[in-house]
């Protein structure tokens, strides 16, 4: 295993970078779309049935089947795997954003409305700041799922090639060529990537969570 690692180290790093880029692009798209829709539907407290159920249907789709269908529809490549990963990550982020925003104290929201905040002012100045911790939990989960699934890029026809980074799927999806050792090492890299990313997301969450929210959470957890 050490032998494999030292023989393939620079290649592994490049593939991990490709894996990370792939996952990150899918995550960013999912965050932009999922948080916007989830938060807004949460703010309206209407159409939730539609948004949540649509999310659940997307979540139930087997990623590999989706990739196969999209090969027929749009062909091989980066777009194919990215769509597949977005379909995986988006529902997670959307449902969490929805739950986070609806979970903001209704009395507080009504106070905001009563004081003359308009809808978007309520959403951006009251609901979202209070919803950040829960939204970021969804983002973190989605990241781990995405990294764990991005190896499917190889089946979507996205592999290392001049001008294309590839993904750890180049190794994981090729056990006959790389051997069990190779698959295990590549999987370990994926796991490290997932944890590193999750850690960074946690740091981002801390930075983004307003001080007052942190204080009120620690006050709520302190023994009375």
């Amino acid at each position, binding site marked *: 295993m050490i032998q494999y690692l030292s023989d393939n180290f620079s290649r592994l790093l490049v593939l991990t970078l490709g894996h990370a880029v792939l996952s990150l692009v899918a995550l960013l798209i999912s965050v932009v779309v999922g948080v916007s829709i989830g938060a807004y539907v949460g703010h309206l407290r209407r159409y939730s049935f539609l948004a949540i159920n649509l999310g659940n249907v997307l979540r139930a789709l087997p990623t590999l089947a989706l990739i196969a269908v999209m090969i027929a529809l749009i062909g091989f490549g980066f777009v194919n795997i990215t769509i597949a990963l977005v379909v995986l990550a988006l529902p997670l982020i959307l449902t969490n954003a929805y739950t986070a925003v609806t979970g903001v*104290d209704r*009395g507080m929201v009504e106070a905001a409305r*009563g004081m*003359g905040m308009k809808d978007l002012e309520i959403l951006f100045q009251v609901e979202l*700041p*209070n919803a950040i911790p829960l939204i970021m939990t969804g983002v973190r989960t989605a990241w781990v799922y995405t990294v764990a699934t991005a190896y499917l890029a190889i089946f979507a026809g996205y592999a290392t090639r001049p001008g294309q980074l590839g993904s750890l799927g180049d190794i994981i999806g090729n056990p006959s060529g790389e051997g069990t050792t190779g698959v295990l090492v590549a999987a370990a890299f994926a796991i490290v990537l997932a944890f590193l990313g999750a850690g960074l997301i946690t740091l981002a969450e801390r930075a983004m969570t307003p001080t*007052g*929210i942190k204080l009120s959470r620690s*006050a709520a957890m302190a023994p009375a």
Partner: protein
Amino acid sequence: MTEAHSQRPGVEIEFRSVTKTYPGQDTPAIDNLSLTVPAGDICCLVGPSGGGKTTAMKLVNRLIDFNEGEILIGGSGVRDVDITALRRDIGYVIQQVGLFPHMTIEANIGVVPRLLGWSADRIKARAVELLDLVRLDQNFAKRYPSQLSGGQQQRVGLARALAVDPPVMLMDEPFGALDPITRNEIQDEFLKLQNEIAKTVIFVTHDIDEAIKMGDRIAVLRQGGVLAQYGTADELLGSPADEYVADFVGADRGLKRLSLRLMRDLVKVSGENHAAPADAPTVKGSATLRTGLSVLFASGSRVLKVTHDDDSATVIGTVTLDQLQDAVYETAPKAPTDVVVAGEA
């Protein structure tokens, strides 16, 4: 202090035959409600849950929209102005978590000023001024709501509602979540404050004692949002309109009514000074009749000596047990010559 804090005293609020029926319900939540709150008065809305008191209040800032009738603030209809502008010009205080936990106290107080585009400096200065008004130290400005006690939070809630010096304030059970001692304290302070700022206040409470204490006028609502009686505490206690109101204000309304008047008023009414026995108990002129009665009963005497507020050695007169009883029995105690027996329910 007064001028600096408030340049806009209250204006009249008038409900004109206002009816609100929620969609899908047969009976209205507010049924043909008409009442006028004079400028600068506190009007307490009381009633059972389901009586529509909170609904009635929320009709004013249109958090709930009425179906029929009209509500006028200072003569102009609440539907004739932009809803956002309307709300920003009405102070709003709610029970529990009205404060935004993610904002500092200063930012909380500055919510409406910020919406109105005030400069940061002006907001800062106003926050300091308001913290002072509600008797909180200036160093609270940079703290967060969770670092404050319930009573302190509610003071901030009050300061926030007063931020742009609105002529009208809506208060939804503002002190309901506080412990009795803190509640009493903050009630007293609010009354003192109200003396200076003279806002027109609609104050929702389920506690009739709080209504009697806080309200210049009290509107008693019954199930279905029907106004059962509207009047001063004294009118409600002295001549309840019907059995429902009598029941609502409590069987001890005679005693409650004693709380509304001060010993010094009764001394004036009595006129001549009877020579009281040397061992007669004394009570301050600023004590309520209820306190006087309690002192009297506890002492076994039939006469009380009433003393000057600041100087307990100066006796300003006496009050007898009979006088105390007459005070409750009169219908119109504000005009003691007009002796009419209270209509008993």
